[in-house]
């Protein structure tokens, strides 16, 4: 182990003079670069060593020591390669987050820059050291630093600090790096077992941003002074990116990764690839998650959204879309957090006036059935939603108002008798187990569920439910006003109310809080006791 001063003196010797006798010291220094738990204790020494070596090799590059074909150069190159592999080891092997790792990435990238200049076939020739980059990717991908953040679990996206450094500092900013990254990564994917959950998280971390070189309005610089022409080829980049995406997406994904992928699909993926319809398999896969995993939650909904986008924009043929959507309306939906999002999407899916009335009726009936044990937030979004649907499809109004069952005093006895018998013989034909929304016979049913909601315990909900018994004069309701209600917002509305009129008191006297009724007085709550 060299001490601080020794490193300093050797580095000075090597950089100051061209005296080749000192070159042995390089090997000594490189060998000294040993990163393990013990050496990590003196991190500043290691860092100093790294920086010193970088300076030495830069000097050697500029002297042309690494380029010529003589034995010394060979020897120097060997030392250089050792240094590089040591750096990669540091990157991949660091168990905890330290600034040393970040420095290693920076130094390695600087070396790549040097290489592109001095390793080119001849001077000024375009060259990019893609193999070195490939090695770095491998090293980064095998880095296994556990981050403490919880964000990773939610988004399924890696928060490896080394990777973040690489992405933030280099990948996002330089077009040539993006290109060679994709090509090298593609090479790696095709030749190795890289499609695992952990790798997917790193992949997502790399590409989940808006500064891809194919983005409009993004003008990226090049990292190396003189990159090859191919870097400019956008089409090739797209092909590579598409390949990578499809390879990654068909591997193993966690739920969070499914969700993240689906969320970024139409903004950050589809614009950058050639044939978005190739994602159909992935989307179908994601949709089918609900049958495999009870906690799938939002994923099928998002998948449907993606499919819908593809259908709209790329003329994708997708059978039974609405049947699948109908299948998503379950009791759990009303209690889930992504409810508002789902309603927004459903609003767009059902916006067409060309869908059949039977289908709309099934949706209305299913939704209103679900309100019977839904929280007020969900009820509040269902009511205006159904109102808007009814407004758009007036043939469904028969579910609210069936004139065949009205009696009036002007009717003849015969007619009255007829209505009476109609009423008595009526059986609700709605089949809630039917999965095809065209065949549920919801149209022949009626919305008793919504009529019952006028008796809801929350006064505002009850009032809102009364719109179905009032004339349909409003054109439609703006759904946004109704989607984001929760218990918290309802309670906040209550607590912000000022105490203007005193709350009325119970006039009945209860002698006891709990217990059965007996001589001591009436208990408020029977069936419970202290």
């Amino acid at each position: 182990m060299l001490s601080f001063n020794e490193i300093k003196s050797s580095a000075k010797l090597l950089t100051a003079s061209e005296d080749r006798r000192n070159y042995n010291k390089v090997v000594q220094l490189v060998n000294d670069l040993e990163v393990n738990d013990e050496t990590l204790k003196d991190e500043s020494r290691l860092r100093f060593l790294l920086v010193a070596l970088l300076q030495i090799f830069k000097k050697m590059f500029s002297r042309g020591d690494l380029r010529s074909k003589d034995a010394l150069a060979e020897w120097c190159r060997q030392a250089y390669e050792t240094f590089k592999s040591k750096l990669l080891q540091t990157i991949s092997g660091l168990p905890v987050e330290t600034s040393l790792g970040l420095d290693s990435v920076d130094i390695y990238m600087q070396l790549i820059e040097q290489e592109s200049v001095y390793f080119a076939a001849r001077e000024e020739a375009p060259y990019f050291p893609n193999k070195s980059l490939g090695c770095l990717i491998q090293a980064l991908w095998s880095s296994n630093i556990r981050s403490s953040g919880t964000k990773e679990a939610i988004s399924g996206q890696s928060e490896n600090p080394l990777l973040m450094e690489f992405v933030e500092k280099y990948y996002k900013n330089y077009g040539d790096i993006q290109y060679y990254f994709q090509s090298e990564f593609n090479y790696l994917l095709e030749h190795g077992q890289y499609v695992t959950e952990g790798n997917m998280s790193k992949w997502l971390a790399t590409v989940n941003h808006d500064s891809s070189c194919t983005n409009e309005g993004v003008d990226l610089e090049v990292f190396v002074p003189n990159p090859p022409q191919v870097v400019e080829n956008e089409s090739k980049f797209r092909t590579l990116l598409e390949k990578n995406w499809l390879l990654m997406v068909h591997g193993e994904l966690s739920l969070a990764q499914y969700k993240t992928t689906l969320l970024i699909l139409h903004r950050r993926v589809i614009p950058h690839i050639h044939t978005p319809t190739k994602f159909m398999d992935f989307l179908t896969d994601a949709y089918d998650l609900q049958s495999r995993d009870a906690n799938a939650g939002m994923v099928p909904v998002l998948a449907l959204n993606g499919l819908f986008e593809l259908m709209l924009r790329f003329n994708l043929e997708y059978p039974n879309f609405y049947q699948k959507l109908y299948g998503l309306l379950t009791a759990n939906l009303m209690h889930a957090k992504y409810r508002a999002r789902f309603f927004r999407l459903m609003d767009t899916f059902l916006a067409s006036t060309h869908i059949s009335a039977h289908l709309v009726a099934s949706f209305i009936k299913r939704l209103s059935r679900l309100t019977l044990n839904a929280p007020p937030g969900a009820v509040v979004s269902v009511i205006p939603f159904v109102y808007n649907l009814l407004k758009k499809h007036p043939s469904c109004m028969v579910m609210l108002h069936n004139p065949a069952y009205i009696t009036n005093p002007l009717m003849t006895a015969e007619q009255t008798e007829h209505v009476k018998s109609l009423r008595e013989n009526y059986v609700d034909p709605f089949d809630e187990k039917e999965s095809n929304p065209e065949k549920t016979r919801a149209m022949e049913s009626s919305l008793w569920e919504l009529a019952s909601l006028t008796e809801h315990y929350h006064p505002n909900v009850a009032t809102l439910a009364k719109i179905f018994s009032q004339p349909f004069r409003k054109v439609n309701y703006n759904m946004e006003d109704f989607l984001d209600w929760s218990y918290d917002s309802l309670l906040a509305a209550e607590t912000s109310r000022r105490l203007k009129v005193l709350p009325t008191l119970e006039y009945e006297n209860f002698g006891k809080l709990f217990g059965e009724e007996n001589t001591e007085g009436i208990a408020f709550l029977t069936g419970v006791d202290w």
Partner: protein
Amino acid sequence: MGGSQLKNLKATLRANDLTGQTAPKKKKGAKRQAKNYDHEERQKVIAKIREQFSPFEVKSAKNKQSKEKMVPVGKPGISKQIGEEQRQRVFEAKRAQKNRQGGIIDRRFGERSRDMTEEEKMLERFTREKQSQSRSRTNLFDLNDDDDNDDMFGAKLTHLGQNLEDDFDAGDLGIDEEENNDDLRPKRNYEDSLGDPQPESRKKTKAEVMKEVIAKSKFYKQQRQKDQEQRTDQIEELDEGFDDIMSELRGSKAQQNSREPDQQKKDKEKEYDMKVRELTMDRRAAPADRTKTEEELKKEEDEKRKRLEQQRMDRMSGTVMGEDGEEKGVDDLDDDFWGSDEEQDASGEGDIADSDEDVQLSSDDETEEHQPIRDISCPSNHKEFMDMVRGPLSEHPKIVKKIIKAYQPKLAEGNKEKLGEFTGVILRHMIFLSEQKYSANVPEFASVQNSLLVILKSMSEKYNHPLSDTCRDILNDMQTRFKEKHFSGLSVGDLTFFTLVGCLFSTSDQYHLIVTPCSILIAEFLEQIKFNSLQRLGFGAVLVRISLQYQRLAKRYVPEVTYFLEKSLATFLASDSSFNFNVDTNDLAIPKTEDFSKEIPSTLRLHLLFENDNVGEELKAPVFLSILDSLRIAVTTIWKNLPAFREICVNTEFLLRETIRSFPSLKVAPQILDTIQRIKKFDQHYPLSLQNHKPLSIPSHIPKFEENFNPEKKSYDPSTTRNEINKMRAQLKKERKFTMKELRKDTKFEARQKVEENRRSAADYHAKMAQIVNAISTEEGAEKNKYEKEKKLRTGKH
């Protein structure tokens, strides 16, 4: 007519013989006509000419029937003049009255009272007059009366229109007067009767009148002489007896003795005065409230309940919301239901007066009355209270009662606020107690809680406001606790709080400031808690109970209760994957071997459920039974009234069938299922017709054509009442306009008058000043002249 105005005027005057030689053709012999008549005629003619020549004097309207004729409709100048004069008069009167007090007060009976009709007034006046007359007449016939100048006779005895008694009484009069000369009335009467001439049969001649006057003056003269003589006699008499009187006065010792009784008398008088004053100060005795019989009390109670129930129903249906409620309750302001509001409003101004409104506690603690209660302080938060109640649990209600007694609002200012805070403290204390471990002595604990409840209930009527504030604080606190720590943030105290709210406040209101947030919170708990342990299920079971109890009257539907009931039943049933219920755990299923045929109490005992975190397996059955019981209540009281009864019961029925299949020994489940079937049978289930509105007419835009149009007719409205109203409205508008105009004119006039007055006074002032200056300058001038003359003279001398 052509020519200038002047020429025309001259011509007209001449044509009417008003200028030039008057009556030139008058013959000498012709008789002179009445001058007066002539004059009037002349005036008329002149007025006519004047009218003719000043076209703006007369306002005229075109006569449409006969052409070119104008019909005069008014004389604006004249009417203006009249108005001006009137105003002037009023103004003068007002000014004369300005800065002056007094005037005539009409004291006629009933002149001012409005609630007497004219007839009543007259009748009353008549009876009064009669009474006063009869009073004087009793005097007349009273034999005891000393007054014996008998007017009766004087009024009657006449001869030839002359009073006979003049001479007759003359002799006695002097003596009579001597005896009661302080009584002025009879004398006046006498004089009146003298002066009052008898009903005139004929008019007296001048000579007769003169004679009468002479006689009278003679009579008076004689009388005066007599008086004089008498007076001198008396004076002489007195003079003679003067010495005797003086000697008597000096000799008497009465002076010394008189002081003692005088003093005594004074004291007595003082005492008497005091008594009188006291008596006047004393409040007049008023009849005490009659002690009511038992039936009456009962009836009153019933009526009160009925009224309160009606108000409750109104609130439930939402017809009376918020502030409107007070309007409705105006006529019951005196009863304490709404009265409590009023008190709160007035709480700022010293409340010592309404001390009889103190909380009346059922005081069975007379024994400790004699204990000094001064040294108790009123705790303003729960911590302070905890420092005070270190003793055994059973003492707590006593201490609370003592504090309330010591801080009755009548005793000191500020007590009301203190007790208000203390009400919140009691509430917190009850919650606090329920969170303690009390399993050692449950009955005692229950009785303490119940007596605290009774106290809190009676306090809540007076201290509604602070209590409500505390409740809101607790609610906020509970919400944040749940948000941060979910179920572990909740405790049995929260259940106690919800129950207390149900006891204290009216839970059936459509909107209630405390109960509505409570309902929301309960629903939130039922929906969001992960029911994965028996304790949590027990918590939910109690919450469902409370929620159902809240809705016992209003019968509103709580979807979360349905959600919880289904979820919890599914949890307890075997974890068959066949049902699609999203249960939070599969570990809580009741084994199929469980025997429900034996008696298992369905009562949930809070201390067993919540005292330890680990709840024994043996409680599964009670919780399960309790949930089933809640389901029964929900079905029979709330769900059965809803149009969607069948839809709500779909899942429940399925679960009940499962239950029956799993536990054949359970009797409750088939009963509930049976109830559901029976309700279904009687429930008519047919499609809705919610939009059965009255058909609206389509608005037509064809112009309305009126047959038999009449320009005179103002309105074609067939409704007579509306017509009347419109007419009245128009009239009112007109009147209003007129009055406004008049008022404006009045003010203008007054302003003009004021300006005039100012100008006049200014002119007066200037004139005065000018006069003074003149006087001074003339004086000065004279003096100067004098001086000059003098000077000249003197210089001339030299």
